[in-house]
């Protein structure tokens, strides 16, 4: 039976997508999971996978067309099957993920070659993990910034106003994605994760200081980051714990391992930190969690998000089941996603579902910094540079490798002592890196 492939809904408020390019042509064989086309949402270019195996019998839209979410784009069936204009079965690509607290799985990464070159140049240098900025703005929990006014009925707006519901977080089910009353009511009853009860943050009007002032319109990515960071800092009470790690052994081991690895597969310091954090999180389930009003959700998987600097902003790529992955596989996965992010092409699955994040500015010679939590995660680790510093050992001053890291924690979920213990436990892995290999 032929299956119809539809334009997937890849974001919380995605209403249409541009079919940029067909990867498969009519008549080509396709397996379930193969990339069928590239589509551009208002935030990113994303690959759409086929949800069916067979032959691409019909491409229903031309490259370049704007297609509303849910409209059929292609028919996949067997080679000899008769295809009529209205196939019976409509299947949405698996890209869509409908959970309460996730939304747009992708952010526009735009054209980010500069960073890429930078990280490539640094790849050979021992202490330089990939560039990781301080804040993380993924779309995984944000309803991405909307173009123009929010589509909502006047009644929906009134109900939202009366109940302090942020309409930009409410998914509209009316025509064209319009938010109608029942959507706001659903949000109020908790069926949607609208941020309720939060007053809009006022933005002071900037005063012009010279004729040379320039107004730079926000990109969508910038808008999303701005909103997410305001949301995080205004709704999540942060506290910070800094720890210094002794990483001589790690540096030595990394050097040894990398001698056996080809140039493009060499492990970064950050790979070790990701792995160590994931293993530590397994022992601290309370930090691998999300605050949910009257409860804390402890996540069953440890999925570590890694902040990636891209042109004009950043986003977080997500390594899944990080605690169970060998370092080399983890490293390859992150490298692939980082490259994709910088080229403006990410798969929805690459940027959604993280349960904890790591931001690393080590490559910029940063001693230490603190990051903003990426809601609804409960914590984020900000990693500074690995540096050779004078250290005192057995009463003697020596040269040693040290690296500082600061964890930011949602105080609603956890407290200082637990965070400090976590950072101590992390040391057991970072300072005895062989533990990460077994």
């Amino acid at each position: 039976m032929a299956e119809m492939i539809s334009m997937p809904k890849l974001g919380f408020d995605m209403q249409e997508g541009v079919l940029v390019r067909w990867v498969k042509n009519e008549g080509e064989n396709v397996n379930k999971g193969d990339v069928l086309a590239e589509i551009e949402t208002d935030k990113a270019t994303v690959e759409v996978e086929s949800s069916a195996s067979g032959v691409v019998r019909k491409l229903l839209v031309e490259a370049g067309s704007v297609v509303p979410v849910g409209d059929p784009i292609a028919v996949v069936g067997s080679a000899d099957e008769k295809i009529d204009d209205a196939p019976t079965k409509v299947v949405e690509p698996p890209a869509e993920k409908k959970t309460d607290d996730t939304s747009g799985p992708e952010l526009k990464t735009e054209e980010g070659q500069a960073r890429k070159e930078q990280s490539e140049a640094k790849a050979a240098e021992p202490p330089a993990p990939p560039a990781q900025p301080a804040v993380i703005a993924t779309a995984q929990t944000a309803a991405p910034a909307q173009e123009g006014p929010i589509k909502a009925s006047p009644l929906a707006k009134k109900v939202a106003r009366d109940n302090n519901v942020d309409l930009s977080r409410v998914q509209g089910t009316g025509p064209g994605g319009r938010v109608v009353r029942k959507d706001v009511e659903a949000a109020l009853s908790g069926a949607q994760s609208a941020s309720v009860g939060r007053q809009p943050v006022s933005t002071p009007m900037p005063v012009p200081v010279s004729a040379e002032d320039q107004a730079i319109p926000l990109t969508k990515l910038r808008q999303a980051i701005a909103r997410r960071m305001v949301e995080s800092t205004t709704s999540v009470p942060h506290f910070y714990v800094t720890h210094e790690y002794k990483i001589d052994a790690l540096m030595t081991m990394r050097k040894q391992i990398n001698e056996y690895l080809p140039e493009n597969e060499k492990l970064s310091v950050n790979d070790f930190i990701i792995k160590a954090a994931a293993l530590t999180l397994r022992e601290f389930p309370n930090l691998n969690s999300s605050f949910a009003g009257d409860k804390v959700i402890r996540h069953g998987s440890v999925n570590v998000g890694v902040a990636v600097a891209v042109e004009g902003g950043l986003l977080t790529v997500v390594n899944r089941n990080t605690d169970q992955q060998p370092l080399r596989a983890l490293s390859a996965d992150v490298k692939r996603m980082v490259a994709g992010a910088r080229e403006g092409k990410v798969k929805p699955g690459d940027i959604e579902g993280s349960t904890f994040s790591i931001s690393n500015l080590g490559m910029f010679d940063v001693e230490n910094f603190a990051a903003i939590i990426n809601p609804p995660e409960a914590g984020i680790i900000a990693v500074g540079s690995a540096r050779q510093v004078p250290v005192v050992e057995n009463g003697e001053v020596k040269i040693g490798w040290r690296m500082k890291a600061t964890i930011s924690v949602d105080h609603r979920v956890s407290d200082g002592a637990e965070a400090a213990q976590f950072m101590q436990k992390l040391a057991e892995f970072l300072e005895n890196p062989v533990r990460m290999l077994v």
Partner: protein
Amino acid sequence: MAKITMREAISQALMEEMDRDPAVFILGEEVGVWGGTYAVTKGFYDKYGPDRVMDTPIAENAIIGAAIGAAMVGQRPVAELMTINFAFSAMDYIVNQAPKLHYMFGGQFKVPLVIRAVGGGGRQLGATHSQTPDAIFAHFPGLKVVSPGTPEDAKGLLKTAIRSDDPVLFIEHATMYQVRGEVPDGEYLIPIGKSKVQREGKDVTIVTYAKGLELSLKAAEELAKGGIEAEIVDLRTLRPLDMEPVLESFKKTNRAIVVEEGWKSYGVGSEVASRIYEQAFDYVDAPVLRVAQKEVPLPYNRTLEQSALPQVPDIVAAVKEVLK
């Protein structure tokens, strides 16, 4: 309560008012000896004689002009226009004289005139004889425009119209004379300028009048089978327009369509929708949709004529659309 036709209801109203007030008289084409093109005044000529049931020449201008003059000097004429399409021949009198004389002469004159006009399409009378131009007349302040959808309302409203000191255009739908409905026994009046809920429902508001009421009631039955309860508000009077029951209903349902037989552009639906937006903006959960006649001169061919006029499935579809 007796169950009578719209024709009988209108006829009863005329007769009761003529019996009550000797100043009431009827004039129009074929209203006398022949008993009216739609047989509304059958028997009137024999009962009241040629002075009170006057056959006129085929000259609408003269009919309305004479009626205005008689009204200004204290009579209560009921002028019949065989079809509202002929009202255009008397346009100056209907919209430029009758509604304005009271104002132009400092209140010295009243014009207690009723113009009964037969409107609507669906009888294969061709483009020039099948129009529903109600909105045109409702545009002019000073002229009351009434168009009932049930025998009960027709009788009660016509009696009130005859007693009104202002000119009233009373529009009867050509295909509704056979519609039967219960009418209260004895004398009763229904005020002009009061809309009425003709069917209660909670899911969507259908605003309509005249023929639209008949169609909307059928549509509501069909919708009810699918679990959609439509509330139907019958405007009954287009000017002065009573929005109270409409707004009250809309505040409950938050969704509305307007059903009218006239063309959509610049029509009754546009007016009602606009007032909803103005007066109940914060209750709007979906755009108000208009079901109306296709924007063509009405075809003669029966199939084409029916497809150009609003029908029950159009109403059902509009309701479903507005409930999306």
